[in-house]
């Protein structure tokens, strides 16, 4: 589904990704972990070109999205993204946050989008917040709405960029719970996170990144149970 070939990214001569090769199949839940500055967020943000790769190829649904001629906006409609800082549109109500893109992009009528929004909000138990504004909500509520906003586009893959890192500890659970639900429904997910429990429980594959490279990857039981790379061993000994 996503095929990354020799992806490199440097910022002002500083090399952040040094040639990543990675294949993500439909239905996989790939969890990316690693220390800060290891390039994991940059890697994720390259997948929908929020970060412009310096070189390499990223094939998604048979299209090389690094190619300048591809319609990146069209492709992004199929790749939902959830941010560390939620990034709900502060001037719009919860319902408008969810319906804006599907309606303005001509994918749904306002009525259809409203119905979809209410359905998604009921599912996460926030239907009564439809007319609230983002800053009236807790971080956990905002992040769950951000997830739902991405889902309203019916994406084929969801990218999560440290979705729980900005949350109060007691709100982490509700967001992870929703992500687990999504995973169990078969959504393809790429998750950058520091939540080792989530990686172990939900991930079908865990990648360890450091210094702009993927140093080790395995299914979670092997990854956590029998790590090989010394850098990974060291990392796990500190975080587990």
């Amino acid at each position: 589904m996503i095929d990354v070939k020799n992806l490199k990214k440097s910022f002002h001569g500083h090399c952040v990704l040094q040639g990543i090769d990675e294949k993500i199949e439909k239905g996989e839940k790939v969890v990316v972990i690693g220390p800060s500055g290891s390039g994991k967020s940059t890697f994720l943000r390259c997948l929908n070109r929020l970060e412009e790769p310096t070189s390499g190829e990223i094939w998604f649904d048979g299209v090389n999205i690094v190619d300048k001629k591809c319609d990146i906006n069209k492709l992004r409609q199929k790749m939902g993204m959830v941010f560390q800082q939620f990034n709900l549109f502060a001037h719009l109500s919860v319902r408008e946050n969810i319906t804006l893109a599907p309606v303005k992009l001509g994918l749904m009528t306002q009525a259809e989008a409203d119905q979809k929004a209410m359905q998604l909000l009921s599912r996460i138990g926030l239907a009564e917040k439809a007319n609230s504004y983002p800053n009236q909500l807790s971080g956990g509520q905002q992040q769950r709405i951000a997830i739902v906003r991405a889902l309203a586009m019916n994406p084929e893959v969801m990218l999560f960029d440290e979705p729980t890192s900005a949350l109060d500890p007691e709100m982490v659970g509700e967001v992870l719970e929703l992500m687990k639900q999504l995973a169990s429904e078969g959504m393809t997910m790429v998750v950058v996170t520091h939540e080792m429990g989530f990686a172990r429980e939900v991930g079908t594959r865990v990648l360890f990144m450091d210094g702009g490279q993927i140093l080790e990857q395995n299914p979670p039981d092997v990854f956590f149970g029998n790590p090989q790379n010394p850098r990974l061993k060291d990392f796990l000994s500190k975080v587990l």
Partner: protein
Amino acid sequence: MAEFLQTHYYNLYVALIEADRWKQYLEGLGRTLLIAACATVMGILIGLVVAVIKVSAVNNRKLWPLEAICNLYLTVIRGTPVVVQLLILYTAVFTSMTNGTPVAIVGFGLNSGAYVAEIFRSGILSISRGQTEAGRSLGLTSWMTMRLIVLPQAIKNILPALFNEFITLLKETSVAGYIAVRDLTKVADGIKGRAFVGEPLFIAAVIYLVLVVGMTQIQKQLERRLAKGDRR
């Protein structure tokens, strides 16, 4: 005391009623409002375009020629007095035009655009990058993201600065007399000269003051309406 009041009452009569002079104030006021309103709209349009170009050029190097033009425009307009700009437009650019009003509209519009551009730019930069990224990640184009997400929030942040500029512009039109436009100030000054009383200038001042107070009220209303996402 009675004498003092009587003198002023008489002077006001001369300044306003005699020879139907109040009609001249109204004409001047109309011209002032026309110039200010049209120049404000023009300034907003120019300012918006210049600000969006300057902000976009940061990430899109292909826009550098447009950015260079915008920078030249900002430097020249902000670096020279508005009266000089008006005189140049009137005497050297629109040479065939005898009516100064359209020239004044263009002059004040071009002038205000430069200041509005920087106000808009500061507003756009005040919105966190995450808002743009969220919009783009949903598949919205950069212009849709700007129009639907960034600008509505930016405008709320810049409303005070923007109204500051509108108020300045309204009062600045009082120099339109330099290019033979009979605006409110020019009319009042003319009546003062003919009637030999000082009151016309005070009358003009009161009219400007009322207009500005009215604009301030509009600003308050708008701020209240735009604050709906702010309440906790």
